């Protein structure tokens, strides 16, 4: 279980909130073909809830899980209902190195496999695991998709700001819906593919130069127009700013 409370980058960057680590977190960014299971909380309650969920998923798949939040969520104060303290799990896992079993084989935890054929076999097993995650662990949240002509999409903190932008837009008469991926990997491709033919466009908003938007575009497969609006370097977009840019891109441009 890892937590990345994303600050502005690149390099030392700034201590202000940003989402520029989306690629690093969801596409690998380390060595070899691997994925972390990535959870993106959008409030402080989820920051707490996803810790337990993250550990459960990590043990279910024997795969590292990352919580990707940002510098604002990391320092924000909100009401939180803390989950009850659970007793420490005492389960025996057959793979755990707790001392060689008296009537069994020794356990070795390693990622080193010098034979290429063996290493490929490990890779194929990992890919099967990722496929299973994609089938079973996709999490997302939607609002107002039923009559939506446009969709705002964002993750984490920005999805909350986008929600407000959607409300203001609705008051102005724009039929805007909202999608927020909760798992960034596996990415909720299906909901975007389903909604794409029914809407005039999707606006993806992020605190980076446009990273998740690539996954949105891959998911809609050209079935609708996808635009991007982002701020970088620690700047947090406002709801009005998002709506203004939406109008510029989709309404005035029509």
């Amino acid at each position, binding site marked *: 279980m890892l937590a990345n409370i994303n600050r502005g980058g690149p390099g030392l960057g700034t201590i202000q909130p940003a989402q520029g680590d989306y690629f690093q977190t969801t596409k690998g960014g380390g060595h070899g073909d691997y994925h972390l299971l990535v959870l993106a909380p959008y409030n402080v309650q989820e920051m707490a809830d996803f810790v337990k969920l993250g550990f459960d998923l990590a043990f279910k798949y024997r795969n590292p899980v990352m919580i990707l939040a940002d510098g604002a969520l990391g320092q924000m104060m909100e009401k939180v209902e803390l989950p009850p303290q659970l007793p420490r799990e005492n389960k025996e896992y057959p793979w755990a*190195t*707790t*001392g*060689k*079993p*008296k009537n069994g084989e*020794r*356990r*070795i*935890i*390693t*990622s*080193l496999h010098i034979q290429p054929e063996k290493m490929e076999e490990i890779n194929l097993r990992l890919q099967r695991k990722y496929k299973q995650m994609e089938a079973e662990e996709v999490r997302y949240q939607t609002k107002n998709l039923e009559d939506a002509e446009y969709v705002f999409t964002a993750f984490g903190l920005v999805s909350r700001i986008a929600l407000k932008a959607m409300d203001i837009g609705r008051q102005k008469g724009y039929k805007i819906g909202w999608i927020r991926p909760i798992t960034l990997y596996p990415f909720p491709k299906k909901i975007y593919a389903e909604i794409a033919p029914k809407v005039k466009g999707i606006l993806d908003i992020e605190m980076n130069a446009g990273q998740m938007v690539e996954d949105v575009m891959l998911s809609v497969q050209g079935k609708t127009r996808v635009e991007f609006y982002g701020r970088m370097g620690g700047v947090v977009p406002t709801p009005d700013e998002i709506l203004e840019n939406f109008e510029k891109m989709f309404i005035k441009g029509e």
Partner: protein
Amino acid sequence: MAGEVLDVVAEDIVRPENLVYRRPSTLLDVDMHYCPGCGHSTVHKIFMEVVEEMGIQHDIIGVAPVGCSVFAYNYMDIDMQQAAHGRACAVATGIKRMLPDKFVFTYQGDGDLAAIGGNETLHAANRGENFLVIFINNAIYGMTSGQMAPTTIDGMVTTTSPYGRDPKTMGYPLKFGDLIAPLPGVAYVTRQAVNTVQNVRRAKKALQRALEYQKQGLGFCLVEIVSNCPSNWKMTPVESNKYVQNVLIPFYPLGDIKVPEVKK
């Protein structure tokens, strides 16, 4: 006696009562990948003898490093994990904290422990983590073909110091055991070797003592073994053991650097 046919067959000799030397049951009966004459195999053997003698085969977890001994788990018949380059002390910290009643050790070379993992090792020692670090110091990076390590001694020729290590530009050889010994979390630091029979016996005793200290919860223990690398030193095994004796040991003197105070 000359010309007489000895009336003895092998079966008469190979009897349990005649057994004076054997592979410990905790060491697997497989071919080792180590070069002929390398100290790793000796250290593996004596450590697994200690594990056998203490009866802790089912209560010990090891962490293998990156380097020549990366495959230590192919030889030691115990539960093991493999850490990434230099990270063994961090992994061992996790294991020991979750399983405080088990014995935990790392097995690391000088490149892994003192260079790549210098930070992990230093802080695990300073936190007084209650596990054993077996530190094989042959003054070079062995697996990658003999580059200079922090432990390479002044003037020593390696592939990356072809004219000999010059402390002016390459820094001074690092005595990691001496560096961490003053830390309050560190219980036991000793420097041993396996180049002679006498030294092998002493090294084995040191490993056993370290595990006893761990059982008593005294803190971080480091057993450094000044070892050889015949292949990369481009020496025969015998020459390399002489080099250990005549060149390395004078710089890395053997003996205890820190021992726990006896409780009264």
